[in-house]
């Protein structure tokens, strides 16, 4: 999100310019100048902190660079294969559940060490019927229960499991063959690591919105990878986050938490100082919303959940005891929403104002007002604009490295353009509503 805040700032660049003869200038008096200065000052403060965070993350990136080599590793053998259970909770997933389970069965991992529990959480479609084709597979167990929400299905699976490591895979996600191998290796190497999150990649993006999300996921993957060595991961997402069994024994099962149980669980782990790592070589492909409405519903749930869970765990905020999670990552996830909305409002205000001025100009001067001035004298080099260039540049570096992390090398795509152009305009939809809902304690729905 940090990157997006700055990408937006670029839109401020085309400021209102005018001819001396025109004497456009400010349309308000001293009072409005003071108000404008006040809002500008807030923007400068936000920009300073945003830049500080970006610089902080970039320093971490340079420290971690050697450990962040991407690319799919060759077939490897582990000295030890921990027994694993993957729970696939499903609710009306008749179309995707087969693919999800088949991707699990195809992974490079000893079959006698991998169990899959498919839990039909009271589906009303043909999900139960569809999963019957796996009933004779010795690796797979099928369970049907009354609908109680995803976390209840996962909890049931955890209780049924006896494996050393336990994970969950949403029925709309698909794992790459080496994903579990990479995670198991990380568990072998780091005995203090209690949970592992994979790199999430958008599965077969088709619509513009899905392509936009592809780049968003890339940038997000990079930032999560940066947060990993800082012990600052605060979400263990549904698709293929894997836990040591002892985690559940020590801190309990999932509990209802504003429809973002994966965040609550990660925060609970963090309060017990349990290490969560991001394994960027474990690739998991997830289906993303293809329409604006579906995306809005999903992101509203996430944004609301982040804010509510942060409030529930507010004792973590600004406490050195919780390291960078408490000092930077969690405050950023909470206050970042407000910074994002402020910047958006600032840009929107200036865009409307300059558009209004331009319309008046065009109505009087005609189309000649649309001809841009190419004199280098008019290249905007205001302080705030130069800062926006820097922030935008770092944002691009984040995207660049996110793509490299996911695909092995950077290749330009329309997804990046869609992300830069669209995200700043549509994200305020759910952020605004989330703030509104939090203020009124109005919950969100899963679907």
């Amino acid at each position, binding site marked *: 999100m940090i990157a997006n805040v700055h990408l937006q700032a670029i839109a401020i660049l085309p*400021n*209102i*310019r*005018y*001819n*001396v*003869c*025109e*004497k*456009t*200038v*400010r*349309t*308000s*008096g*001293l009072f*409005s*100048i003071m108000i404008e200065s006040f809002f500008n000052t807030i923007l400068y403060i936000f920009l*300073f902190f945003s*830049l*500080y965070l970006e*610089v*902080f993350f970039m*320093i*971490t990136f340079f420290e971690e660079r050697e450990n962040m080599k991407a690319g799919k590793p060759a077939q490897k053998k582990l000295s030890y294969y921990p027994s694993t259970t993957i729970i696939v909770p499903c609710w009306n997933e008749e179309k995707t559940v087969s693919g999800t389970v088949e991707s699990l069965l195809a992974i490079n991992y000893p079959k006698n060490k991998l169990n899959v529990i498919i839990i039909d959480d009271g589906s009303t479609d043909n999900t139960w019927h569809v999963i019957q084709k796996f009933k004779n597979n010795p690796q797979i167990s099928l369970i049907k229960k009354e609908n109680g929400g995803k976390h209840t299905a996962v909890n049931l699976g955890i209780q049924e499991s006896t494996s050393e490591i336990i994970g969950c895979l949403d029925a709309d996600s698909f794992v790459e063959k080496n994903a579990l191998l990479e995670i198991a290796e990380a568990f072998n190497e780091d005995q*203090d690591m209690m949970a592992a999150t994979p790199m999430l990649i958008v599965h077969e993006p088709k619509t513009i919105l899905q392509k936009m999300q592809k780049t968003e996921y890339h940038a997000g993957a990079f930032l999560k990878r940066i947060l990993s*060595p*800082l*012990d*600052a991961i605060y979400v263990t997402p549904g698709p293929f986050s894997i836990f040591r069994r002892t985690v559940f024994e020590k801190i309990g099962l999932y509990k209802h938490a504003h429809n973002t149980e994966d965040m609550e669980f990660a925060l609970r782990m963090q309060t017990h*100082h349990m*290490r969560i790592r991001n394994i960027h070589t474990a690739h998991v492909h997830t289906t993303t919303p293809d329409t604006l409405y579906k995306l809005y519903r999903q992101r509203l749930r996430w944004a609301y959940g982040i804010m509510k869970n942060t409030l529930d765990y507010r004792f973590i905020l600004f406490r*050195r005891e*919780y*390291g*960078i999670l408490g*000092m930077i990552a969690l405050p950023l996830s909470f206050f970042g929403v407000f910074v994002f909305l402020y910047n958006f409002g600032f840009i929107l205000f200036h865009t409307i104002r300059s558009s209004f*001025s331009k319309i*008046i*100009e065009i109505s*009087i*001067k*005609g189309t*000649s*007002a649309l001809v841009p*001035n190419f004199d280098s*004298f*008019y290249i905007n*080099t*205001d*302080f705030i604009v*130069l*800062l926006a260039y*820097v922030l935008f540049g770092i944002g691009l570096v984040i995207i660049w490295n996110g793509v490299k992390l996911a695909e092995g090398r950077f290749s330009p795509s329309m997804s990046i353009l869609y992300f830069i152009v669209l995200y700043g305009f549509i994200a305020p939809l759910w952020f605004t509503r989330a703030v509104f809902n939090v203020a009124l304690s109005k919950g969100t729905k899963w679907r």
Partner: protein
Amino acid sequence: MRKTIDSKKYILALAITVAVFVGALIISNKFSAQRIAEIKAIESNISMDILSSETQFALLKESSCKAVDHSSAFSEELNELAQKLSYMEDSLGAKNSEVISLKKYYSLLQVKDYLLVKQVQEKCGVKPITIIYFYSNTGDCEECVREGYVLTRLRQEFPELRIYAFDYNLDLSVVNTMKSIYGVRDTLPALNIWEENYYGFKSAEEIEIIIPQLKKLRAAREKAEAEAKETATSTKK
């Protein structure tokens, strides 16, 4: 064991951030200084050109009006200067001392040009087409914005039209003298055309009614363009 906070890293990030902020500020100021210097150079050029024209006029007197044809001289330069000065005013703020200083000099150049045009054209028996425009940019003149667009449009269409724009609130004796000579009140925008004052917003059409020569100029230009087109067509044949 949780990763401990490395104070050095926090401080390094802070130092880099501050450096970027200060760097952006320095670079921005450097560009502003360059622009100011560019504006000063343009003002200096115009000043030199006006002086040159004045001297030329003094030497030749009315013996050769063609030799001192000043009808469209500096129009482009003054327009460019106006645009750039406006940009700086917007960028650095109307209260910036450099901007005020440049505006004062610009106003002086306008008055000098105005006087020269008046002298040359009157002595050569031509009635000058000039508009003296008073505006305010302190937020008390909404219509000044629109009037500015109208005058810019007219200036673009008629290079022969000389428009002199003065900030009504500029603390400059010459501007005050202009105000008192023409008896301009503080009802802005105010236009002085042929020594008559017009207050409030005036559209391009209204100004064309006040200055009928503009229509004649347009008609003459259109006729010349049509002839040129005809000639070009016949040459092709």
